[in-house]
């Protein structure tokens, strides 16, 4: 099957789903109080648009700060744990355990300790993003084929050359994979804090609409955040491919 044909069927499937949903809502098969028609959701996008754009900006700003910190800390720790065998043996079980444990348990404490502004959202976003990034990078570094390194060294490469020409290109895929996964976790962390702490942003907006039973606006806001998130991930993937060519 050609990619174009696959894409066509995907688009048609989504269109058919939306059409069926619209028909079901108009015919009264589903309660419009809970499941509004796509056309009503589209109108709601227009009505919440102005408010949503500002709040998306706030949520994104917090996510970006959390993401930069999580990437810096996660890549640094991942390179150290993946590159130094002793550190890996000692610290990896901690990272794996902390990655697996539900971070939501410390969320109340983070709100208590860091107040109700942007800080707890950033802290929790970093907490969510750090461990997956660190684990992916550490795993990637450990899996590097060491032969090219030995060959380059025996052929007299300087350490600067080794780093630029051998180590960096070999480590890059793991770092990029970590960065791609990390952004979802950071956004998730920020949204959870906004929801739970009632902090300005898209998370709080979603909860407000849900509590007020404003289903069309809720669906519209959910769709906006979802599209935003898919867009960011696809953007990072494109960047990955670019850098892949460069390698």
């Amino acid at each position, binding site marked *: 099957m050609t990619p174009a044909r696959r894409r066509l069927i995907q688009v048609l499937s989504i269109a058919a789903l939306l059409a069926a949903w619209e028909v079901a809502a108009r015919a009264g098969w589903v309660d419009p109080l809970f499941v509004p028609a796509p056309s009503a959701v589209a109108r709601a996008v227009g009505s919440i648009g102005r408010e949503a754009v500002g709040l998306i900006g706030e949520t994104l700003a917090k996510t970006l700060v959390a993401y930069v910190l999580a990437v810096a800390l996660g890549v640094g720790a991942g390179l150290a744990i993946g590159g130094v065998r002793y550190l890996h043996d000692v610290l990896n079980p901690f990272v794996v355990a902390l990655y697996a444990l539900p971070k939501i348990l410390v969320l109340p404490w983070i709100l208590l300790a860091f107040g109700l502004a942007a800080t707890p959202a950033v802290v929790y976003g970093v907490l969510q993003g750090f461990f997956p990034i660190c684990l992916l990078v550490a795993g990637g570094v450990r899996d590097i084929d060491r032969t090219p390194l030995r060959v380059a060294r025996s052929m007299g490469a300087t350490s600067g050359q080794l780093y630029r020409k051998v180590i960096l290109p070999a480590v890059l895929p793991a770092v990029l994979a970590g960065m791609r996964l990390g952004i979802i976790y950071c956004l998730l962390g920020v949204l959870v804090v906004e929801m739970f702490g009632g902090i300005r942003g898209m998370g709080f907006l*979603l909860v407000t609409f849900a509590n007020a039973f404003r289903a069309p606006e809720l669906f519209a806001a959910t769709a906006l955040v979802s599209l935003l998130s898919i867009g960011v991930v696809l953007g990072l993937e494109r960047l990955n491919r670019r850098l892949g060519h460069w390698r």
Partner: protein
Amino acid sequence: MSRIVLARLGVLTGLLGAWEIWAARGNPLLYVPPSRVVPALGRVLRLEAYPTLLSHLGVTAFEIVTAYLLAVALGLALGFALGLPRHVGEIYEPLLAALYAIPSVVWYPSLMLFFGLGSASKIAFGVLLGFFPVVLAVLAGIRAVDPHILTVARALGAGPRTCFVKVVLPAITATLVAGLRAGLALSVVGVLVGEILGARRGLGYLINDAYGRFRTADYAALALLALAVVLIVDAAAAWTESRARRWTEGAAG
């Protein structure tokens, strides 16, 4: 080996010690040193802090089990429906992967709207989180089945049913069991997140309640209890996974 274990213990002790010293200097409402968490945990476990603890734990356990069973059933059904026919998975897996790129908690307010603040919304969120790894594992497993073996089996006269039971199922078991384990962990997280974001019963509700009343030591003790639940569930899953792996390796060899 033992030197590494010692180093790990050293790291752990260092962290706990640093926390003890740090917490002693901070606001006691915010910073609970380990020396205060241990007695609080004792009171929680003896049902002195929360006499109704067991019924709340029961609610959480019920939500987790229900959510996980539904997640597995839905995940297996959708996974095989997409994976077994040719081309269907090719078309719809990218859409599924795109959904996976959305932070799951975005869906929680809608689930709250549909299912209210009771157990149903927590179960629904647990299903939503737990179901993805199962579907993706089924799809990955089916993709990895060696087509030559299937061709040979068919040539030797195996019907679709025999092919499925004797070739596909053993080949995907290892991947599938890993997916089932990841799904379980996520179902647990989903239920806990749902309870903490807003509930009237359950372990998450108690944690929230303790935090809301500044009973920080109790909060820390309850959080540790929740961690213990998570660890026990995961240990059980890991044991099952290793058993399943041994079974498939035995079948292959």
